[in-house]
């Protein structure tokens, strides 16, 4: 269940950001997950719903956007989409590549639904 550790990180960020922007409620969150991260979206969502209870993000929708894997061939510099983890350059057939996309695991943005009245204290 490494999804737990990931969601803990997400909640920490959301609570800090909500306090900073004086947000009382978060309605949705967009998270980018590269296909090289071995993260199970359904588990991430289930875990998020659990952790969000009683916080500013309670009831918020977690939108997970998968990021495909892309690589650049070290030999001929061709950049290509990697289908099903076959890291073979379509240009020269070489397999010595740099991964340029697919390792992402970050929060892109969230929707703030209400703003705290000035002077109010974030939950």
């Amino acid at each position, binding site marked *: *269940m*490494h999804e*737990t*550790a*990931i969601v803990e*990180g*997400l909640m*920490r*960020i959301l609570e800090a*950001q909500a306090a900073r*922007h004086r*947000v009382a409620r978060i*309605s949705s969150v967009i*998270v980018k997950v590269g296909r*090289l*991260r*071995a*993260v199970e979206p359904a588990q991430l969502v289930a875990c998020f719903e659990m952790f969000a209870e009683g916080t500013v993000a309670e009831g918020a929708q977690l939108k997970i956007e998968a990021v495909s894997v892309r690589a650049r061939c070290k030999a001929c510099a061709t950049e290509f989409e990697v289908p099903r*983890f*076959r*890291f*073979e350059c379509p240009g020269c057939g*070489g*397999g*010595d590549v740099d*991964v340029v996309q697919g390792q992402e*695991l*970050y*929060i*892109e*943005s*969230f*929707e*703030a*639904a*209400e*703003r705290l*009245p*000035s002077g109010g204290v974030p939950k």
Partner: protein
Amino acid sequence: MCDNCGCNVTDGNRHLVEADHRTIEVLEDLLHENDRQADHNRAHFDAMGLLAINVMSGPGSGKTSLLEATIKALPDRVRLAVIEGDLETENDAERIRRHGVPAVQITTGMACHLDAHMVHDALHELDLAKVDILFIENVGNLVCPASFDIGQHCNVLLLSVTEGDDKPAKYPVMVRAADQMLITKTDLLPYIEEFSVRRARDAVREIRSDLPVTELSAKTGQGMGPWLAWLQAMVAERQAKFRRHAQGYSYAPHR
């Protein structure tokens, strides 16, 4: 004077009430705290010039047996230490200590992988100044250990012949993260005709063509040579880097 009809909205507070729906861009890594701690761990290692190796595999592929065989086979001048990660029990650390090598057991309880904070806690039980190679045996699991940086310099991935030659294709993220792959328990090959070393190697090559793959048996010692040579080359490389940086090294993490 209620919140619904707007009768309490004045020019002074209108922006607070109406700026209702906003998109707030964040762009922060979810594992940021772990990654920061991992960098800190690496700074500990680099300050000592030691090589830290994350040993990963499915449950029971022979990680601890490999470490025991490695302890016996390496020359005494290469000083070793081991951190053992398991859900429960001190068994693996005790197996290592029997060979006279310092070992710290981390029991993760629920967590199916080690993280950088757990490893940092364990570091303080070791005298890193007296270590050339620190092996960190991760929890037996083919999915998530690769996602958590613990400060290692390289990853070793084990696949035992009893697990099936289709495992590289099923766990490509692990293969992608590996710097050395070992096909273990090869003494059992005569009894497991379903396992084709060639098929396993082909599957690895598709995912990571430059990954060195070594076949060995910790039980008989057969094939240990290339693995030991790789280890010693890695240590030499690390120590050369350490000596080059020694003069200009300014950042010393707390001990």
